[in-house]
């Protein structure tokens, strides 16, 4: 069986980040960090994505969007929360419109801390997510049999 971790396609969504983390995510695509060497493609299409990478905490407007994107992704899939905001709500935690970290809405597999999260940390988190992805695929196959 082909391992899904050999070709993970990544979908990046900004739930309500200050854009600091978003820029660091885009940094990962630049020649210096080049995540394509792992076969990772930054796609904009939930139908084709394996990794859901979210920056920023969830607010009342993005909650439904996050849920919808998550439901549109085919199994196996993993969620990576990038930045303190995405992990817990961060500096915006007390705001009236913020629900908190991503895990208040959908299950999160890997938390990447940092404000803003460094590109090295993001790549590290994504590679951790790949292991989870393989485990999920194996579990799915075991269930299928």
């Amino acid at each position: 069986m082909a391992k899904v971790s050999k070709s993970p396609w990544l979908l990046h969504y900004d739930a309500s980040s200050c854009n600091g983390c978003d820029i660091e995510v885009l940094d990962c695509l630049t020649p210096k960090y080049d995540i394509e060497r792992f076969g990772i493609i930054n796609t904009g299409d939930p139908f084709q994505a394996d990794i859901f990478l979210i920056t920023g905490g969830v607010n009342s407007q993005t909650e439904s969007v996050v849920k919808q994107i998550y439901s549109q992704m085919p199994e196996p899939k993993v969620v990576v929360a990038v930045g303190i905001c995405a992990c817990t709500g961060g500096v915006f935690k007390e705001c009236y419109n913020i629900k908190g970290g991503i895990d208040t809405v959908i299950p999160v597999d890997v938390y990447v801390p940092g404000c803003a999260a460094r590109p090295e940390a993001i790549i590290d988190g994504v590679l951790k997510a790949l292991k989870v992805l393989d485990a999920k695929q194996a579990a799915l196959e075991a269930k299928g049999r």
Partner: protein
Amino acid sequence: MVMKAIYVILFLIFAPFIGGLLDGIDRIISARMQRRKGPSIFQPFYDLGKLFSKEMIAVNNVQLLLNLSYLVILVIAGAMLFAGADLLMVLFILSTADMFLIMAASSDSSPYANMGASREMMQMMAYEPLTLLVAVGFYLTTGSFHVGTIIQQPVSAVLWMPGLLVGFMFTAAIKFRKSPFDLSTSHHAHQEMVKGITTEMSGTTLAIMNIAEYYEMVVILGIFFLFFVNSTWWSWIVALAICFVLFLMETLWDNISARLKWKTVLYGCWVVTLVAGGVNILILMLDK
């Protein structure tokens, strides 16, 4: 007869592998041009394997079927080319295959996919006249539409049809979905409108479309091959080498140009068709 069957079987088995490898080479070279390391050369195969193993999410019942038809009809066109059949017929079947892709893309409700479908149709309008002129050019040069006859000429066809070769390079850039002509869907920047026709395709459906594209790649390179081959044995090696160089040139082209607007593509292609293709055909008609 036996030889023909062998060519067809070789094509059926190896075309997707060659197409996939070429795609891998393309991705590495593109990455190196951008000072990146790039993925493994086998990345296209990893991608295919992954796509087949994913959960099926179908937007409707027909998309998978239409994509399969796209693949099957493309394979038929390729098999005919490698069996040495009628070139005109091959080109017609090739465009029929594309119609199925357009139908597959417009079968879903995504506005991006629908825009992609109409752009794909527009691209067909852009390159179709030249493709026909290429077939006519081969007829005027060699006296036959039959691929079997075309490859047995004493001199290579390209000597008589350099203009058509330049024109066909435009067609190939559109068919390979290379910038500046990757309007309907692009291999890079996988976002919204740029994604175009493949927006609603996932898993198996997308994998089938990719395999079809690898077959198409080999068919297009096969037509390039016809330009350079003649009755001598060494011309086969030269032709293969030139095909590879032409493919690398398409990669270069892809990396140094930005996407054009559809009107520029359409008119640009027609001007090339008229100037390079038309003049070439005119000279052929007067001289042959």
